[in-house]
């Protein structure tokens, strides 16, 4: 058991870097932070290259870069510093590190006050995200899970748009309540298991629950009801982060008010926390309950897809459009998860990565255009393609990626989800439900094409009085990198899909089996 593995190194570097950046003078903060953030990228890429995990972290798989130390002993329970990676968390970790670096680069232009604080907070957020995707002890995980809120609150509140204070506090309180609700649900399970467990190790609890049976009555709740209650509370809690209709309303506000790089992180990584948690907790630990209520769950998923898309159709603000379409895309993840098929789980997880990259790309592109035009309203801009050919080119590419163009990551993810959901034996009337959900791909094409036609093409005109010029290289570079990643993953999903499958398949095979 290594005392300090690469994961600890990642956390250490980012935290240390964060404090260095806090102290750095504003004019160097951006460059310094970017430089610092390259270390986690390098480390995580190295980890990916030597990744030797197998199976699912919670179901007795062999973990990569595991370390397990005692932390706190509280009454009956021991909290442990337990981290490790499996095929699900590894790609998400990569997503977090890479996206952070790119977001940092894309901040150079828009962020022009209190830089050192901004970049320091960004690094703090990266550290917490790394923790979220690596921690395997519930309490430790919860620490990072909640820690994400703090930098996010400031990033939205200080550097955000006109209604930033409202958006920040809304995001803050909303998600915090969700966490507490989820916490109650999970704890009900833990106490339901009684003395059979003595730690908050997610693996231990997951396996205890999957063996079933040994769940005892708690406060007059019979085991079955207890499962249902716990599932409901946890689902409700995580649904806010995802977000699922009807608990999504914090998202558009947060997205619209947040500065672009923060939106990138929010859509790219933070939303994935929700689905990651759903996968780890609800769908891993309470399989039977999930299967029994698949009809209701999938309803939420499909509803989010269609409803989010419809809302996006009604928006005038480019950022709001992308924000609502994120709700739609995350709905697919729910659809895939609840299918309980290999491609369902795999596609859902892959969609987390794909949507992370594509929505990040989308927000960055909108940001680049905003940097030049200082407006995001569809009505204010037209014919930008005339002035910013490359940025617009990438915008078009990103939009088609969002529409699920083949050979881009989005298509792979969505197709796999559909494939999995269609064949699902759990979802009632699976083919029909899937078909309904799939209609999202038409609507998404609708609003994105409409928005592009209005803003990018036609006679050049601009409502704001700024002269639009080609975007600087360091604005476009991150876009190119992201686009490249999207295409690479679209042509060769196996790069991450293989390890994902390896990690999700055990979920489908009853008890604790290594695939």
């Amino acid at each position, binding site marked *: 058991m290594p005392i300090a593995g690469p994961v600890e190194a990642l956390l250490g570097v980012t935290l240390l870097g964060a404090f260095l950046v806090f102290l750095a003078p504003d004019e160097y903060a951006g460059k310094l932070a970017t430089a610092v953030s390259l270390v986690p990228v390098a480390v995580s890429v190295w980890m990916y290259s030597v990744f030797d995990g197998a199976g699912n972290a919670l179901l007795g798989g062999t973990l990569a870069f595991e370390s397990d130390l005692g*932390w*706190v*002993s*509280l*009454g*009956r329970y021991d*909290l442990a510093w337990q981290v490790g990676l499996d095929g699900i968390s590894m790609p998400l970790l990569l997503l977090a590190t890479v996206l952070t670096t790119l977001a940092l680069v894309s901040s150079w232009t828009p962020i022009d006050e209190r830089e050192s604080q901004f970049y320091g907070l960004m690094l703090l957020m990266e550290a917490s995200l790394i923790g979220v995707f690596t921690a395997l002890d519930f*309490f430790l995980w*919860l*620490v*990072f899970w*909640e*820690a994400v*809120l*703090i930098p996010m*609150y*400031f990033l939205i*509140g*200080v550097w955000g748009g006109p209604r*930033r*204070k409202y958006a*920040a*506090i809304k995001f*803050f*309180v909303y998600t*915090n*309540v969700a966490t*507490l*609700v989820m*916490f*109650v649900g999970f*704890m*009900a399970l833990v*106490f339901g298991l009684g003395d059979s467990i003595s730690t908050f190790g997610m693996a231990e609890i997951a396996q205890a629950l999957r063996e079933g049976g040994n769940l005892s009555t*708690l*406060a*007059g*709740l019979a085991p079955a009801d207890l499962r249902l209650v716990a599932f409901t509370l946890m689902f409700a809690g995580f649904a806010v982060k995802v977000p699922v209709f009807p608990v999504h309303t914090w998202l558009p506000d947060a997205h619209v008010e947040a500065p672009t790089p923060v939106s990138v992180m929010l859509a790219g990584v933070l939303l994935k926390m929700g689905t990651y948690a759903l996968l780890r907790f609800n769908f891993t630990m309470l399989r039977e309950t999930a299967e029994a209520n698949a009809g209701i769950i999938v309803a939420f998923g499909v509803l989010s897809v269609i409803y989010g898309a419809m809302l996006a159709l009604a928006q005038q603000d480019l950022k709001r459009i992308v924000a609502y379409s994120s709700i739609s895309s995350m709905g697919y993840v729910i659809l895939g998860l609840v299918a309980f098929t290999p491609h369902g789980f795999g596609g859902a997880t892959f969609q987390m990565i794909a949507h992370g990259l594509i929505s990040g790309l989308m927000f960055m592109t909108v940001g680049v255009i905003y940097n030049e035009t200082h407006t995001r309203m569809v009505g204010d801009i037209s014919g930008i393609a005339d002035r910013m050919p490359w940025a617009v080119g990438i915008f078009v590419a990103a939009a088609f990626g969002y529409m699920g163009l083949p050979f881009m990551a989005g298509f792979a993810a969505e197709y796999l989800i559909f494939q999995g959901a269609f064949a699902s034996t759990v979802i009632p009337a699976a083919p029909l439900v899937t078909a309904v959900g799939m209609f999202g791909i038409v609507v998404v094409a609708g609003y994105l094409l409409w928005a592009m036609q209005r803003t990018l093409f036609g006679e050049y005109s601009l409502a704001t009085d700024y002269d639009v010029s080609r975007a600087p290289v360091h604005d476009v570079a991150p876009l190119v990198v992201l686009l490249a990643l999207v295409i690479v993953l679209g042509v060769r999903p196996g790069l991450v899909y293989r390890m994902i499958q390896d990690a999700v398949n055990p979920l489908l095979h009853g008890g604790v089996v290594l695939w």
Partner: protein
Amino acid sequence: MVVDIAGYRVADWVAMTPALVLGLTAMVLFIVDSIEPRPGSSSNAVLAGISTVGALGAFLLAGTFLVLGVGQPRGTGAVDLFNGQLVVDGMSLFFVVIVGSVTALVMLASYDYLDGESYQAEYYGLVIMAATGMAVMSSANSLATVFVALELSSLPSYALVAFVKENRGSVEAGLKYFLVGALSSSVLVYGISLVYAASGSLQLNAVAEALSGSVELVGVLGIGIIMVLLGVAFKTASVPFHFWAPEAYEGAPAPVSAFLSSASKAAGFVVAFRVFLTAFPEVGGLGGGEPVVDWVTAVTVLAVVTMTVGNFAAANQEKVKRMLAYSSVGHAGYVLIGLAALNTPDRGLVLGASMMHLLVYGFMNTGAFLFIALTDYWGVGRTFQDFNGLSEQAPLACAAMTVFLFSLAGLPIGGGFISKLYLLLGTVNAGAWLLAASLIVNSALSLFYYSRVVKAMWIEDSAGEFEIDSYPSSLYAAVVIAAFVTFALLPAFGLLSPSAFDAASVLFG
């Protein structure tokens, strides 16, 4: 009567040394001040130094004893003094640690705060006196000692609140605190007398003994228990005897507010824990039987009402200090869960959580009030708007304040995260869904109003351009230390939590 401490066989009273040290410090302060040729002119530094050292000493001694296992099962087992009028066990030492640390911080901060004030010696003396009272409260094992110690901590507190004699706010606060205090102490003592009537003794174990059998005068006993509960509620600033708190905390000098809202509250709770769990377990139905006087439910009601009233009233205050005062009421409600969510085999879990919450609270709340002291010192106003853009002037202090507030709100930036979640967990464990729900609602609300301060400091732009000229070193030091400890208690929560949970489970026999 000898007791074994780390291998040395010493007289049993040695176990009380933490409290004695505090008492002696008070005496020393009086001596120093009285041998001073020109009365009332002894050096602030010397007095602050002595009292800080004394408090620190008590804190360290108690800590050492705790580590050495004095009064705990793994060590000598509970040490009874004066035929069990006083007892030294894990719980008492734990609370002396809280009281000592808070007092030390306050004393350290007071050095700058009192700069130029008159009657400094009296101030330090009174604080240490009150601290001594609280230390004794944590050991009090008889209703008599409880009452005496409680008064010993209360009387100096009244004076301290009214310390700034020429300030109407301070005086008004003192008056209200005193009147409410007098009323509640008479309620307490009447309750004690009724309990005595029913049980025929004041020593807690004896009371439990007497009440274990069949009790005549049940009604009397019930009235007595409820009155005792309310008498203690005054000390812990719980509804309905909380009315003094907002005014007292707002009107008193900030360090005193810090001292009262942290240490005094903790002392009140240790009394509550000990009295109700040592003397009235059977009566309350904790023995498994039908409850004779269902004080557990009563406490549940008080807990819910207290946290709700405190937090909702705090939600839209104009003055930061008063907001903190109300939030302190709210936290009393959280801690009461330790006496309410007992419908479970392992009650040590939730009670230990309460104790840990009080420990963390001791640092984060003290720190928050000391930050207010700092702003007083700078002459920054008291309202939220006055804090706008403060971070540009004093980033370090504001960062510390942010740590305090977010930790109070239960975010993972300080020990408050774990302790609060552990309270929530305790409610789940006992299946007390009502408590769980109200805890969630209130904690969410508290996040809202705490972050109003953070917003003012970091997000809002400063309206009035005040200039901060001097940075009071000792006050700063106190704030920063408090912040550091608050933060450190997140990773290092385990340093003290085992003793807390052990002490808690011991109390349930």
